[in-house]
């Protein structure tokens, strides 16, 4: 049974991201948040399709972070692509360090944590959201 909401990011999360980028007095209608949810899903789908095409052409089965960065660039979202490449580098470096730490402690218990660790909160300090991704800053 497929829930329609499975195709969208949660409205609470989307709304929070929207609210945090706007001035404190700004209000956002529920419909605007719903529209943003749909746009975000379309963004994921669109980029994933491009990335998947590339994988397919290169006879690879697993879609990885590099494919996403390439797809972002191929559709003209260069700023996103560059920012995500930097993010990916830091992410992989962090994973390597964790793997080394786990090896030193010589336990396997951390192996599955990648899937449950809340990676998305990691900022790595490499994303400058004050203008680096928009071609035109709002006045």
């Amino acid at each position: 049974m497929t829930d329609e909401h499975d195709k969208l990011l949660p409205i609470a999360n989307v709304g929070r991201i929207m609210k945090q980028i706007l001035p404190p007095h700004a209000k956002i209608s529920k419909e605007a948040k719903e529209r943003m949810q749909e746009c975000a899903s379309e963004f994921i789908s669109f980029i994933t399709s491009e990335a998947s095409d590339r994988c397919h052409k290169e006879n690879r089965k697993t879609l990885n972070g590099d494919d996403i960065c390439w797809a972002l660039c191929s559709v003209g979202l260069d700023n996103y692509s560059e920012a995500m490449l930097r993010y990916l580098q830091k992410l992989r470096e962090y994973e390597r360090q964790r793997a080394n730490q786990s090896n030193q402690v010589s336990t396997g218990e951390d192996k599955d944590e990648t899937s449950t660790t809340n990676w998305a909160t990691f900022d790595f300090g490499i994303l400058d959201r004050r203008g680096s991704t928009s071609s035109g800053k709002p006045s």
Partner: protein
Amino acid sequence: MRQPGAYSKLVSGGKSGPHSLPLARIKKIMKNSSDEVKMISGEAPIVFSKACELFIEELTKRAWIMTLQAKRRTMQKEDVASAVIDTDIFDFLVNLVSHDSANTVRESDQPQES
């Protein structure tokens, strides 16, 4: 046992609370996008989580410009639609929002009866 502290700065992100997007949901959306998508590496949804955040932020900022131009303080879905249409790199969203902009009726377009 894991030692806290070494990577705590990375974990907290230094922002006002985490604004992460659920990775499992992102993965579902990715799988739904195309029949060709079979296997997805662990890092891919993580990259998308950040990319989506940037995307939502950018589209929100641009939509807010539309809200201000209309002299309102509440963002409406038409503002999101206008921002999409106004931004070349968001062309892939035009079909998705086109019914919103089509429904937007400006008062100045209404014929005035004397």
